[in-house]
């Protein structure tokens, strides 16, 4: 075993160990300083050549780790983003007395996130997914405000729901196909007797994390409620755990799964539209970004849908989803971290405001797929899937894709507008350098990483998108979005103002929660009545039984008195036992 082959294991263990150090009061300062560096093994693993699979047969139910091509692309953004967010958090929480607690959950979640990327089979993925989900709660409710608790409650309910969906999904898959390495899972899964159940359970179970409609309701609550560095990883990185889960499990590329493909496609495009529609009405910049994530994750679902309809396009779909995830993770994290920076620089000089707005506009434009950006590359990869599918892909998909870019442009303009509003408010205190530095690095990566990133399919997509002929295709949706926004602002400013906050964060959650509360109240009323009735019955039965055992009770009472008169009672019992044995022996 070489060091390189141990890197995947180390990249999980190191954050876990440092999280463990946080238990001890005296080690906390050191542990918190180490936190950002704990993601280095993961980053190194992503950059170095693969060391091959490693097995730990004694751990859990036999743990297998492996870093394949797909995992590498995910690790390539996950490890540095968790690390940079940790560095940012050190500054962001500098006055927080409970920040060690934040770091503990943060590092646990990071270990879970890295772990699921390097997990080589479904059971391992499921394990680390649970670690990530449960510890995510700690970073969401960290600020302990009513909003945070409300977000946390919705989050944990959906985590439990996800667990209820994943358990049967994983159990069925492992029972029918064995816990085989991912590469060998698709073929038996496509023939599994309960294939559709497995797809349903894993689609919904991972869909919660990926913010798939209608399981997206926790995102607009949780992502803004968490401390900003946590929002960045939640919305940028953690959300991709759901996507990777789909990529790992879905039995694409073998037989057409027409119905599932249509479902994915429809729900994905619905999310893309709904995210923009609900997002533009928000007035909290972080909520706007959360809705943008729902919309973008919807777009990442689209290639999977096409790939399931057309098996030939499946490999392209996997690559496109990974490339899109890479791009979105960097851009979205840059934007979230930027919100904290904008807040910290509020009330400063105009020139500084302009610099920050430009720096925010870069990843925002990338999300909208501006020419020469990661977004353009991601969209080129997406188009490649449609082309590979040929006639199998529904005809309405390819004209719709640029329209989603128009929507994203409008949404990002809304975000920039709100960010400018933040800059107008006075900040409290100077901004720590770790925050600006981490934000700066992520912004640079989000803008330029596509030029040199080594992950699967990234460079190919970039080459295709950066060709001169492709520029107009990336540019016009952006321009259309700008024109549309300007026209709306010019012609109907009143209407826009009225529509602000029309949809509350969590959209469909509000009516659902109302129905839920009514059902709960009705259940409680029934419960009280039923309990009374049961009690009457029990009382009747008890009376009967009591009459029957009244005599026996007298004896029991006498026995108690004897036991109280200890040690006579104790010895009595002993003698009794001895007699019992003796009698039987005799």
């Amino acid at each position, binding site marked *: 075993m070489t060091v390189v082959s141990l890197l995947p294991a180390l990249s999980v263990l190191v954050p876990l160990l440092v999280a463990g150090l946080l238990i001890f009061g005296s080690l906390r300062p050191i542990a918190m300083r180490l936190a950002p560096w704990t993601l280095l093994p993961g980053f190194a693993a992503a950059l170095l050549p693969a060391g091959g699979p490693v097995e730990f047969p004694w751990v859990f139910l036999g743990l297998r780790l492996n870093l394949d091509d797909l995992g590498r692309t995910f690790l390539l953004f996950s490890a540095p983003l968790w690390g940079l967010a940790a560095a940012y958090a050190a500054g962001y929480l500098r006055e927080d007395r409970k920040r060690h607690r934040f770091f503990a959950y943060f590092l646990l979640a990071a270990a879970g996130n890295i772990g699921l990327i390097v997990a080589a089979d479904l059971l391992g993925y499921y394990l680390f997914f649970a670690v990530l989900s*449960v510890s995510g709660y700690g970073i969401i409710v960290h600020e302990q405000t009513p909003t945070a608790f409300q977000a946390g409650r919705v989050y944990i309910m959906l985590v439990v729901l996800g667990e209820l969906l994943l*358990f049967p999904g994983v*159990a069925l898959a492992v*029972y029918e196909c064995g816990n085989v390495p991912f590469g060998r899972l698709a073929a038996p899964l496509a023939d599994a007797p309960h294939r559709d159940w497995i797809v349903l359970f894993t689609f919904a179970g991972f869909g919660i994390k990926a913010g798939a409609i209608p399981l997206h309701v926790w995102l607009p609550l949780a992502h803004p409620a968490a401390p900003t560095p946590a929002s960045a990883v939640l919305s940028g990185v953690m959300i991709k755990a759901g996507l990777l889960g789909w990529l790992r499990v879905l039995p694409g590329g073998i037989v057409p799964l027409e119905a599932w493909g249509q479902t994915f496609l429809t729900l994905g495009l619905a999310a893309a539209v709904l995210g923009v529609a609900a997002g533009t009405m928000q007035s909290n910049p972080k909520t706007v970004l959360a809705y943008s994530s729902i919309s973008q994750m919807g777009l990442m679902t689209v290639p999977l849908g096409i790939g399931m309809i057309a098996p030939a396009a499946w490999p392209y779909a996997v690559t496109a989803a990974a490339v899109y995830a890479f791009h979105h993770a960097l851009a979205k994290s840059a934007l979230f971290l930027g919100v904290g920076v904008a807040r910290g620089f509020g009330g400063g000089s105009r020139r500084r405001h302009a610099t920050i707005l430009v720096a925010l506009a870069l990843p925002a434009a990338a999300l909208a797929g501006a020419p020469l950006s990661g977004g353009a590359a991601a969209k080129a990869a997406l188009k490649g899937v449609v082309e590979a599918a040929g006639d199998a892909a529904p005809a309405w998909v390819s004209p719709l894709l640029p329209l989603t870019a128009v929507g994203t442009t409008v949404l990002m303009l809304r975000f920039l507008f709100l960010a400018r509003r933040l800059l107008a408010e006075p900040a409290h205190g100077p901004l720590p350098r770790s925050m600006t530095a981490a934000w700066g690095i992520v912004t640079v990566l989000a803008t330029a990483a596509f030029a040199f990133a080594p992950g699967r399919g990234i460079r190919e997509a970039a080459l295709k998108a950066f060709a001169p002929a492709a520029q107009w295709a990336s540019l016009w949706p952006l321009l259309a979005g700008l024109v549309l926004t300007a026209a709306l602002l010019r012609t109907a400013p009143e209407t826009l103002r009225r529509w602000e906050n029309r949809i509350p964060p969590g959209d469909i959650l509000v009516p659902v929660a109302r129905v839920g509360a009514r059902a709960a109240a009705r259940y409680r009323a029934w419960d009280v009545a039923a309990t009374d009735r049961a009690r009457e019955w029990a009382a009747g039965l008890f009376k009967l039984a009591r009459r029957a055992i009244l005599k026996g009770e007298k004896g029991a009472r006498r026995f108690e008195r004897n036991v109280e008169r200890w040690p006579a009672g104790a010895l009595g019992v*002993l003698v009794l036992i001895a007699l019992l044995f003796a009698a039987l022996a005799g």
Partner: protein
Amino acid sequence: MTAAQWLPVFVVLSSLLPGIVIFLLREEAYWARTLLNLTGAVLKLALVAVMAVGVFQGQTYEARFPLFAGQDLALHAAPLSLLFVVLSSVLWLVTTLYAIGYLESSPHRSRFFGFFSLCVSATTGIAMAANLLSFVLFYEMLTLATYPLVVHRGTPEALRAGRVYLGYTLAGGALLLLGAIWLTALAGPVNFAEAGSLANVPPSARGVLPVIFVLLIAGLGVKASLVPLHSWLPIAMIAPAPVSALLHAVAVVKAGAFGIVRVVYDVFGVRLSAELGLLGPLAVLASLTILYGSIMALRQTDLKRRLAFSTISQVSYIVLGTSIVGAFATTGGLVHIVHQGIMKITLFFCAGNFAETVGITDVRRMHGLGRRMPLTAAAFTVAALGMIGIPPLAGFISKWYLGLGALEGGSPWAIVILLVSTLLNAAYFLPIVNDMWFRSRPEPWDERLPRGRLETRWLLLAPPVVMAVLVAAAGILAEVPMSPLEWSRLITGLEYGR
């Protein structure tokens, strides 16, 4: 009989003899009593370890004493016995330490520890009983030895709990005895044997076997607190925390569940039980109990009562695993004997710590305990997450095997039961965990113990922490040689004749 054959007897005596001596000690003889207790506990653990290694290497241990009319009092160390006897001797040691810390300077300690030792002797006897008769004897001994522990506090409430306990368990014991006598009359001395021991029952007598089965299960179901025979358990939680811990984790409730496992696998045999159509109804009963216990737990506001109802639910996982035919389900049920034990004992230790240290017994008043008692709260959290079945903790391993077993046994509805139970467990444990760690308590604590460097007495603190580590280890290191899982698979192999 060689010396090695006597090992099972020594294991029982290692707690029985200290127990008898403790009765004779004066109340103030703290050190003598502690020394006796710990010597017994450590000695038992050592003897059990020797036996476990021996059995692992293929050695057999069996001691027989003729009683009457061809009936023997017999103790043996089959792999299944060892699973339970290892659990009870580890938990006895830990609980003894906890009880020493818990009962510091309270009255009647000699009485308490005396019966405590008898209780464990009976449990180990139940674990190692090699035939039905010996099992019944130790089972009754357990009933009697536990009663003084339940009423230990001597309050009217405790005495009432004791009455209810005796009423239920004696009635259960009577049913069990009746079933055992009937079966013996039918088949001669009933020895426990892997894959069942009723092969020589004449086919003409097969008709009454289901009746006997029902009698035996009903008798055992009282202690295993199967619905509707469960009512004594939440009432008995009035007992001191170490008693509840032992009662719920290993002694009484587990003895009932273990008995059901013995009856299904080693008396009737899983094939015969299935042929007679006895397992389906048992699975339904177990499922009802799982759901009922959890729903009731959700409605409790007293922490110990909530835990008591949770026990009712969780112990039936074992019965559910037993009643589904297939190696996975059997393994899941067997491994849960250990896993439920270590998880529940952790929770009861923690509940005791909260009550003794800061007087918190109400689940709605647990705010800020994570700050005041971080290690206890952490232990509670680990055990609670384990109960829910979050990977990689012990409870998940049980749930996983039960889930696979449900698929293998062609009863996927059992997965639904497991999932609903998961949901309910989450509903009654997660709010507590949230309150402990994320809600703060503005008012000062009602301190019951002198404040020291630790959050509570070290004898109260160490046991839950050690057990929580075991809960994590049982899951994280589930595949280590001689782990509970490995051991359960070994037993499963024997029960299915492989």
